[in-house]
């Protein structure tokens, strides 16, 4: 018993799983309480919100077209407070660059960063595993396949976007379906279902790439798979922001349930949580938001894996703090990465490449902490 308590202090999730039958509801509750006590006050969330704001403002001043910070301030004064610094023509140019080009892109990066990071954090809690990313159930593979299929066989770009979205959903439905067919309600079956579904759609994607016209369609597919925020214009950002924000809101509201799920199924049941229903809801929300990121900007890997870890270093493992902080830090992270992708060279580097190049060393660093316990 005492051994179990020490373990709980270090790693609540694993400890719970190691002793599924031993303590019953009471022990689970105490482990739960201990875990929450580990978290810090509201400071991390306020801090992340402020840093997101700072990153957004800073990024608004960055770009290929030279605009001085002073000009941006004057522009804002003129636009909203009626001051007159610039002639109308210069004003139109500044408006175009700041409001129509940079702002939608910053917002797109924020949305995508939040969506991927939060679904990653939710999955990591749910599967009680630090190596989990949003693509676990095959959503990115499915969406990529949908996009590629659309690029080759569908004519309108809207149809391609719908195919992308459906591809992501179908992949996850297959993964969950496989787990259901065997009537084993465990996360391990879901993971296996995800591996099968992901592998299936990856091979289908390869097939479509092979069949695509090498002059015309293949470069489009390859570019898409590298991910780029240039695809997301203002109207796309507005359209996808509603479902993404709704999905994030649901995940946020269920962060307490995620805490419970992260202790393992038995404990969650003993705490009166309908594990299956909550799990399906979380999977659904995470799938919708991460598929929409592919619709917006192609596949962007590593964000959903790294950001939850970085955030956990600040907030601790309590999902009630982790999820809101992840939303904010995920947004800030991807905005910074996108700044690099648009400014580093004369051409833009696809953001998926930058997230991977930054993410891998980050992950190697974070692993050092993960050894102590995934939380």
């Amino acid at each position, binding site marked *: 018993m005492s051994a179990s308590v020490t373990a709980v202090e270090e790693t609540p999730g694993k400890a719970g799983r190691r002793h599924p039958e031993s303590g019953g509801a009471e022990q689970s509750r105490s482990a739960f309480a201990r875990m929450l006590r580990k978290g810090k006050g509201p400071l991390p969330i306020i801090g992340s919100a402020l840093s997101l704001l700072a990153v957004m403002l800073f990024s608004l001043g960055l770009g*290929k077209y030279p605009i001085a910070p002073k000009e941006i301030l004057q522009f804002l004064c003129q636009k909203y407070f009626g001051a007159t610094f610039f002639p109308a023509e210069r004003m139109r140019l500044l408006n175009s660059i700041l409001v129509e080009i940079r702002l939608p892109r910053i917002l797109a990066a924020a949305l995508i960063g939040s969506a991927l990071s939060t679904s990653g954090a939710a999955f990591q809690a749910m599967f009680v595993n630090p190596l989990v990313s949003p693509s676990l159930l095959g959503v990115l593979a499915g969406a990529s396949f949908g996009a590629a299929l659309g690029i080759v066989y569908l004519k309108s*770009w809207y149809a391609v976007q719908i195919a992308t979205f459906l591809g992501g959903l179908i992949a996850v439905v297959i993964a969950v379906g496989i787990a259901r067919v065997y009537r084993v309600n465990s996360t391990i079956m879901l993971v296996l279902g995800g591996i099968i579904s992901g592998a299936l759609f990856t091979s289908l994607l390869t097939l479509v790439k092979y069949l695509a016209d090498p002059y015309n369609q293949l470069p489009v597919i390859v570019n898409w798979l590298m991910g780029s925020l240039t695809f997301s214009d203002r109207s796309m950002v507005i359209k996808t922001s509603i479902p993404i924000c709704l999905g994030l809101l649901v995940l946020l509201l269920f962060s307490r349930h995620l805490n419970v799920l992260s202790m393992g199924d038995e404990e969650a049941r003993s705490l009166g949580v309908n594990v299956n229903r909550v799990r399906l809801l979380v999977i659904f929300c995470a799938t919708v938001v991460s598929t929409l990121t592919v619709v917006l900007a192609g596949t962007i890997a590593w964000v959903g894996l790294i950001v939850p870890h970085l955030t956990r270093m600040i907030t601790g493992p309590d999902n009630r703090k982790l999820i809101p902080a992840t939303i904010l830090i995920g947004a800030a992270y991807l905005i910074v990465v996108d700044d690099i992708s648009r400014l580093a060279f004369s051409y833009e580097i696809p953001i998926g490449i930058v997230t991977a190049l930054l993410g891998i060393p980050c992950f190697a660093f974070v692993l050092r902490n993960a050894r102590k316990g995934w939380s």
Partner: protein
Amino acid sequence: MNFRLTPVLLLMASLVSSAYGREIVDMSGRKVTVPDNITRLYAPSPYGAYLMYALAPDLMTGLMFERQNNTTKFLPKQLDGLPVIGGLGMGPNANPETLIKTHPQVLIMWKNDRNPVDERTTAMLDKLNIPYIFVEASNMNEYPEAIRFVGRLLHREKRAEEMAKAAEKILAGTSAAVNKVPASQRPKVYYAEGVDGLSTECNDSIHTELLRLEGDVDVHRCHTSSHMGMEKISLEQIIMDRPDVIVAQEKFFYDKVYKDPAWQEVKAVKEHRVYLIPRTPLNWFDRPPSFMRFMGLEWLTNCVYPRQYPLDLVKQTKAFYKTFLGVTLTDQDVREIIQQ
């Protein structure tokens, strides 16, 4: 034993020589023996296949790619019903047995300085035991000669000459128009690819040959040897480059560019000089680079230099499709092709 076989061998040799009647030198200098009268051929490379659409659709034993549904009516009828075989060296690989099963007498390979044929492909070709011929054209100025070469090979000199002449006339006419404008006064052109319009090509890319023929007017000045292309560029960069003209590949982009507030500060958009590249049945500009680019060259010269190169686009499109593809277009067809 050997002596008794000799007459049989001689007979066989004579049969073979009557089937493989003629030795020719192909464009890469190889000596190849081909039948006197070629009645079945296959072109396992996109460049070659497209030229065959124009010169010898009736002799083709198969297609490189599935044709897109909306393009079939602008392509020769003889292509209908041909199996899709695939390519060697580029594109989806052909199954060699499928290829042999269609009994082509020669394979038309395509070679250019950016697309050398690698050893694996030639090793594969040698195994097929079908004579293969290299046609070479590294740029559009070399196309007329390539067309004439294939014409001689297939005994279709007259038709090939007609096409080669038409191509040469376009090359000469457009370059005369371009040369009337001093280099410093030539409009700058941005080539917008992708649905976001934010992919483009370097000015020395294989994909921007038409822009070089317009007097090297690509605004995106850089070097690439990549065949893939479609480099990402930021809209801010485009605003700074101040292109006078935009040529767009995607209809989705073209349809939104005048409405999208983000693009309104681009010079070409302000001046209403964005043009959508026609792509039926083959792209007029690139992707794939085919003979259709000659039509594209006329169209583009007219877009970039309307005063120096006036053009009756409908009439010229009809004439071009008649000469190269043997199809007669109605006015409605032309409108569909130029997407207006």
